């Protein structure tokens, strides 16, 4: 009797759980139902859609690369609590993740706009301006997406067995060799997971981009901006482009899952 009761799922969890699933899945299905399937191929192969897609891929990949180059070292420093005020730094670098993206855009303008604290100097001295450039898009995406990589990696650096590193050091390996040959391979799956999350966030970036970098086809109009712009004129185009982004998201999820499983079986 007791065993039976333990095996039956608690009713008070099933109801809310089913509602949660429906709430998250119904809009996606509705999107697919409204799709203009007969004109789908022609819509997503228009030059403007291809421009937006290409721009989105290029900027989000560069943003992810930048986040990896400076974010992975920071994640390691945070995990080992090497820097003074580690807790404060950790809190600060996570803020952009919690901030409404449009606020990130305003903050980026304050820093890198042509009258901004840093941007003003760059503009007056070198004539460099970030807003309305593809570089501006990359800055916005990196700002918003890098915390995802840092958080994922810091967790991985914290949880792995440091005796491998210690052993390598005892055997005479330099810090660079230990980091490159022991640390990075051990957290490899987490790097891929963190980079994928970071990339997906960069790919979907909207608020900071339109606020900081503006909206011009081929230069700063990434896919999410193209969706929003299309919504002003042609709903079918907006839906078709949305489905394309949805497909990319699902593909990331599938690829990531494969990686997680391979990573788990390896270790």
């Amino acid at each position: 009797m007791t065993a039976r009761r333990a095996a039956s799922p608690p009713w008070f969890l099933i109801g809310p759980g089913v509602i949660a699933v429906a709430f998250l899945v119904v809009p996606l299905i509705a999107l697919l139902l409204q799709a203009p399937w007969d004109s789908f191929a022609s819509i997503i192969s228009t030059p403007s859609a291809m421009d937006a897609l290409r721009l989105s891929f290029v900027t989000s990949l560069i943003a992810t690369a930048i986040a990896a180059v400076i974010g992975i070292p920071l994640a390691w420093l945070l995990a080992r609590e090497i820097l003074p005020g580690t807790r404060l730094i950790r809190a600060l670098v996570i803020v952009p993740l919690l901030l409404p993206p449009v606020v990130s855009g305003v903050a980026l303008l304050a820093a890198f706009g042509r009258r901004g604290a840093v941007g003003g100097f760059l503009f007056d001295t070198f004539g460099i301006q970030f807003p309305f450039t593809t570089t501006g898009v990359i800055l916005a995406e990196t700002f918003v997406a890098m915390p995802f990589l840092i958080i994922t990696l810091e967790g991985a650096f914290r949880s792995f067995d440091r005796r491998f590193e210690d052993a390598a050091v005892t055997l005479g390996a330099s810090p660079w060799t230990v980091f490159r040959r022991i640390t990075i391979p051990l957290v490899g799956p987490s790097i891929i997971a963190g980079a994928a999350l970071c990339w997906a966030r960069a790919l979907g970036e909207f608020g900071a981009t339109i606020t900081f970098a503006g909206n011009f086809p081929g230069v700063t109009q990434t896919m999410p901006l193209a969706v929003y712009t299309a919504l002003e004129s042609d709903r079918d185009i907006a839906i078709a482009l949305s489905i394309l982004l949805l497909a990319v998201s699902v593909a990331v999820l599938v690829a990531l899952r494969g990686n997680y499983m391979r990573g788990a079986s390896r270790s």
Partner: protein
Amino acid sequence: MSISRHLLAWSAATAITVTSLVGAGAAGAAPGRPVAPQQVTGTVTVSAAASLTDVFPVIAAAFMRKYPGTNVKFNFGGSPALVEQINAGAPVDVLATASELTMWKAVNAGRVNAPFLFAKNGMAIAMPPGNPAGIKRLSDLARPGVLVAVCAVAVPCGATTTDVLKLNSVVVKPVTLELDVRAVLGKVMADEVDAGIVYVTDVKAAGGKVTSVTIPPASNVTTTYPIATVIGAPNVEAARAFVTYVRFTTSAQGILHAYGFARPW
């Protein structure tokens, strides 16, 4: 040539407007007749074009003084986005757009009652204080190196901007296509662009935060603003009262005038 490009399309619509107005008058409270204050109460939700951001709250304050117990709430944005929301069933009482074309999309979808034209607006060039690029006339916007923000062509300010540039044979390569006119004004006020094409009323609203160049009437294009009650509005009486107030009272028309809007009639 200060004639709206949609005027022809509109004249057909006006014919229908008049007919349905007569019909509405026979059926119930005529939008043209003042509604007794005691019937009008509660919250009125108004979706209004971004260019009405400053003037509508002032009109709403006067409206709420006239009808105590009412509370006007606003949803400002680009007109097509507002129409899109209402067509998708947003619980809105009143829609005011910055062009007849966008309003017509809501009329066609059967989502709003017959609209009234209540204001008219023209375009102007706004520059950051000090006018860093030395803009003096519309053709200066075509100079290489001048950063120009305009509205996307899908929103009314963008359609009118396109018409103005075409009328003056000026070819501008903007750096950004914003989705409502206040976003253009914002980029100008932030001094991130050298110039933006906005409504005359936006320049007035920005006060000393921008400098401006007026576009002479002969080479300007205007857009007219329709307002309508939404079919199935949560607060029908108050929605009618608000539309009537905006269109037919001298106080509302006076406020519109003070903010730089012209009369469409």
